């Protein structure tokens, strides 16, 4: 088991004919992901290293049975691409593209979440996800991962790699590592992924990597307190980060949180979640938790 992607994953890549798209799609395929199709409007009928390209995702799904899509198209077209995948009937959409206008995602995320179909959007502005040994959809370097009992969810990209790396070095593998991305409105938030890990038999411990800004970590902490039976180890980046641009005065009013790393760490610790002070300590805490259980 794992969450969201595994051996059953059939991947279609939107933007396969682009430089970035083809580079990472082929890395995913080399990892063992079942890459079945690409989509580039107007290039239907061609192929990229043997992968058939279609004009629309609908056609790709119909012809290949694709159930997962990865979005690698430029930011101004990305929200449209996500909605296209949703409408074409895929179950998991992974949007790597960064710098998508917030207004676009403000409309796209509810478009998907409010529906009666159970579709998961990961990202945008994220490194994707990997279920080590099964499938890799996105840009997480497969070679730093190993299969095992740790589920990892993170708002950050490279920071996630760092932590995966530290875990793997200590011989602790991962069930699935999910980068949910750093955008204001992510398709999936911490709670969505935590609840999937809670239900996944392979996952025994969850590592939860947050950063300054917003109150997603605080809400996840409160939710986990009520709903998670599995142990959680956490890390928050940005204790010494320069204060970001404030959104007028309004930002702080609504979240009820200052959004600082300190506040987040306190919220997590208040519900009994251990917070490592650096990536290395996070890995060490996971070792401790594994020993204790």
């Amino acid at each position: 088991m794992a969450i969201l992607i595994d051996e059953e994953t059939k991947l279609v890549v939107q933007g396969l004919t682009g430089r970035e798209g083809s580079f990472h799609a082929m890395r995913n395929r080399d990892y063992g992901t079942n890459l079945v199709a690409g989509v580039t409007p107007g290039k239907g009928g061609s192929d990229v290293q043997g992968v058939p390209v279609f004009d629309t995702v609908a056609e790709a799904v119909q012809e290949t049975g694709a159930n997962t899509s990865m979005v690698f198209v430029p930011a101004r077209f990305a929200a449209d691409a996500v909605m296209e995948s949703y409408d074409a009937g895929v179950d998991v959409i992974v949007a790597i593209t960064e710098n998508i206008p917030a207004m676009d995602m403000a409309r796209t995320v509810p478009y998907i979440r409010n529906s009666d179909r159970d579709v998961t959007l990961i990202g945008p502005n994220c490194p994707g996800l990997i279920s080590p040994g099964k499938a890799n959809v996105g840009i997480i370097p497969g070679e730093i991962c190993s299969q095992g009992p740790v589920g990892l969810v993170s708002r950050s990209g490279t920071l996630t790699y760092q932590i995966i790396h530290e875990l793997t070095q200590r011989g602790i593998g991962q069930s699935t590592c999910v980068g949910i991305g750093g955008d204001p409105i992510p398709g999936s938030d911490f709670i969505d992924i935590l609840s999937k890990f809670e239900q996944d038999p392979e996952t025994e411990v969850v590592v939860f990597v947050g950063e300054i800004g917003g109150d997603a970590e605080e809400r996840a902490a409160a939710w986990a307190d009520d709903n998670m039976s599995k142990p959680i180890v956490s890390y928050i980046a940005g204790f010494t980060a320069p204060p970001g641009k404030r959104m007028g005065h309004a930002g702080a009013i609504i979240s009820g949180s200052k959004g600082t790393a300190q506040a987040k760490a306190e919220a997590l610790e208040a519900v009994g979640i251990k917070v490592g002070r650096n990536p290395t300590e996070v890995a060490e805490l996971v070792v401790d938790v594994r020993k204790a259980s």
Partner: protein
Amino acid sequence: MDLFEYQGKELLRKFEVPVPEGRVAETPEDAAEAAKGLGGKVVVKAQVQVGGRGKAGGIKLANSPEEAQQVANDILGMDIKGHVVKRVLVERAGDIKAEYYFSFLLDRSARKFLGMMSAKGGVDIEEVAETDPDAIARVHIDPLAGISDFHARRLVFGSRIDEAARKEAIAMIPKLYRAFVELDASLVEINPMVLTGEGRVMALDAKVSLDDSAAFRHPNFDDLKAAHDIPEQERFAKERGLNFIKLEGDVGIIGNGAGLVMSTLDVVKAAGGDPANFLDVGGGAGAELLASAIEVITSNPEVKSVLVNIFGGITRCDLVAEGILSALEKLDVKVPIVVRLDGTNAEQGRKMLADAPHPMLMSAETMLGAAEKAVELAHGGGR
């Protein structure tokens, strides 16, 4: 991008939001001219992006063009909390009967837009939120469905603003919403929204923040941006696509990905050092970008050592190494650079650095080790 008051008002005017008549001026003479054009009493307002300009003397009344010139002369060039005043907004002064607060923004946790209104305007709204939360009416708006008239009614009746202001406020709110959405704003804040002696409702101040990611939809975005002063080092970084923020310390930091860079700052701090900057080269950085990053960092005379912390994903460590080597070749680097590479093509990158020894270049195995070494070097030791 946070707009200046005058920029925000110009944009809101296009959406038929009532704002006072006014003109921006960069010199006292322009201010006099503007006052003349408006006629009668005017108010001269410093255009700075910081709160409390009124208390700091940045807002003054003038009864004549001469007086306007004089107060503009006082205000232009003022330093308000570190912001130097380069422009003033000269506006027709009116009789104000009441001041309200209004804003639209994105509520991340609800995944909806949030409208807020209060009869307690013109003051620090965060304080109102803390001391008298019921004084702020809030309404969520589904981004797909958009605004409907009832949202405006809930804000206006819920905030209990004066009866005389209700009708115009209810008419103004959908216009503010349209501006918020169509400008790709992350914030439209009107504080205060005022009821005038003549019974009109208008935006007396405006704080509008635009989404940089949506710049491609707004042909005037660059013009708006041009009015903003950016320090030389930051401008240089931005032009090259680097996400750079200057800090006060002496350990230069380069990393890929905001989370990793933030974590690197934390680790440097924990090791007893003081980061000189935040610099994220982003995803997929090539050799040239890395070279620019080193150029930006080393141009800061405060920097005593540099820590390059890369975990390759999209970013290829061989290209990072290439960039570092080319920077070392091109520039006269006088401070030590500690490099830690992991992830995509890391071995290749490490080998490239090892094969091209340079007195200022050293490698580290781990992130923690690299941070400790960089801090040690900044403090004058370690070599």
